[in-house]
């Protein structure tokens, strides 16, 4: 039932939390991994914060993760740590006059980013709104399920991480396990996260999700092309969120995020905010644009717009 690497990871998660609690009580040493625990458990336990890893240390960490995941999922899994591209700040556009609420993006994201199938985690939530009431979140419906969309009198607004330039979530993290990268993507170091869920409370968009249980991700459904800060399999007890498909968009040339690519109506736009000729700048300059909950001064890099 519990193969080696699974046990390792669970042991690590439990022990890290126990240590933190234990340290407070002054008995932390009792919660350390058992003396006979596998070497990789100890390595994981003493792993530094992602941003403090030297190049060599990072290489070792990635190799350890790759071998653990490959064993767990019975296939070759790659874990990259591709850095941000110079001169790039990612921005996203979503055309509310086009979206039909079909939820293809939700499932495209789940498959690409290895979200837990059970208990269910989805990074994108599509809201059905009344045309008469406009963008009024109190009237939003999440669970709509008619035979066909769009339905009369409604429009649809997918919500996911807004990649705020002034993110409230990163400020509340007591251990700095989440931060904004140079290209504007807000990321989580799953190995550093202690699972306190402060960031979930701080996010005004409901964009962060917690791994309550070991995810049931069928082996054959794993996307083996992963990034350390993105879609690699997550341990239990950590928070995760949309990363603008960091494993795709930081490639050279950069692929579009999975949700952008799967949308059947082309409602989703993605590009470099710093490129004056890019599609994101074009839509900001030429279309009616709004950002969600502007009054909170979170400064999202996710722009809702109306092309017509």
């Amino acid at each position: 039932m519990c193969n080696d690497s699974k046990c390792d990871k669970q042991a690590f998660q439990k022990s890290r939390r126990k240590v933190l609690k234990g340290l407070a009580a002054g008995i932390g040493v009792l919660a350390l991994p058992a003396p006979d625990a596998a070497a990789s458990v100890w390595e994981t336990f003493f792993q530094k914060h992602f941003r403090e890893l030297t190049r060599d240390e990072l290489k070792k960490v990635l190799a350890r993760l790759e071998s653990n995941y490959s064993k767990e999922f019975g296939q070759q899994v790659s874990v990259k740590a591709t850095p941000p591209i110079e001169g790039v700040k990612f921005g996203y556009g979503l055309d509310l006059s086009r979206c039909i609420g079909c939820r293809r993006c939700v499932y495209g994201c789940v498959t690409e980013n290895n979200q837990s199938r059970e208990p269910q985690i989805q990074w994108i939530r599509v809201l059905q709104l009344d045309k008469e009431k406009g963008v009024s979140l109190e009237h939003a419906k999440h669970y709509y399920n008619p035979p066909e969309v769009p339905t009369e009198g409604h429009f649809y607004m997918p919500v996911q991480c807004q990649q705020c330039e002034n993110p409230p979530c990163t400020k509340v993290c007591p251990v700095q396990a989440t931060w904004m990268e140079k290209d504007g993507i807000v990321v989580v170091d799953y190995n550093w996260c202690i699972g306190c869920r402060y960031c979930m409370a701080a996010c005004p968009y409901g964009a962060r999700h917690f791994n309550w249980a070991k995810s049931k991700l069928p082996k054959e459904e794993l996307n083996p092309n992963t990034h350390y800060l993105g879609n690699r399999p997550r341990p239990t007890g950590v928070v995760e969120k949309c990363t603008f498909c960091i494993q795709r968009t930081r490639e050279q040339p950069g692929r579009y995020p999975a949700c952008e690519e799967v949308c059947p109506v082309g409602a989703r736009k993605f590009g470099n905010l710093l490129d004056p000729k890019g599609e994101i700048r074009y839509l900001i300059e030429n279309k009616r644009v709004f950002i969600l909950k502007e009054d909170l001064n979170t400064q999202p890099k996710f722009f809702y717009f109306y092309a017509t």
Partner: protein
Amino acid sequence: MKINLRRSLSLAIGLTALGATLISAAEVEKFFDRQGNLVVQEKVEKYKRRADEGTSYPVPPPPFSDGIFPCSDCHAGMEPDPERRELVGMHADIILDHAEGQRWCLDCHNLNDRDSLRLVNGDLIPFTESYLLCGQCHGDKLRDWKVGIHGKRTGYWNGEKQYLLCAHCHDPHSPSFKPLAPMPPPIRPENIRREAAPVAPVPH
């Protein structure tokens, strides 16, 4: 001096001859027809050069119904009939739901060469550039489409892009986007607890 002149003269003549053969080679078109016979024919410049030529909008092949193209396969032997009428028999399945009171087939399809489309100014365009035809009325959409705002564009955000023709999403004869079945809604939180396998106790 004399020798030099003669040399450059002969060089010039040689180059012209070479150029001529190159041009004549380019003017012949070879292809296999439906019966598998090799056809060699003189190439005719059917399509005019356009202002934004060189800007590329790579698109997949137009979404023709099976076996319908080239239209000339059937139309070649038929007498063109420019008279506005309701079609019976062939193409009767096409119901025009696109400003039907104001136009009919030959406002977009070309009378004498069915393998091309025709703009209002009389210019012929290939089906792979049908966006020019749509853009005659929907200029704002064409402008947005070119910069990747209207319609779906795939490829790389900082590299090659792939476009779709208008006709890939909108049936030109009935262009409104057809409704789709939505994918399943998320599981309600209260049901996640019930349906999930025994959830590990929350570590505290």
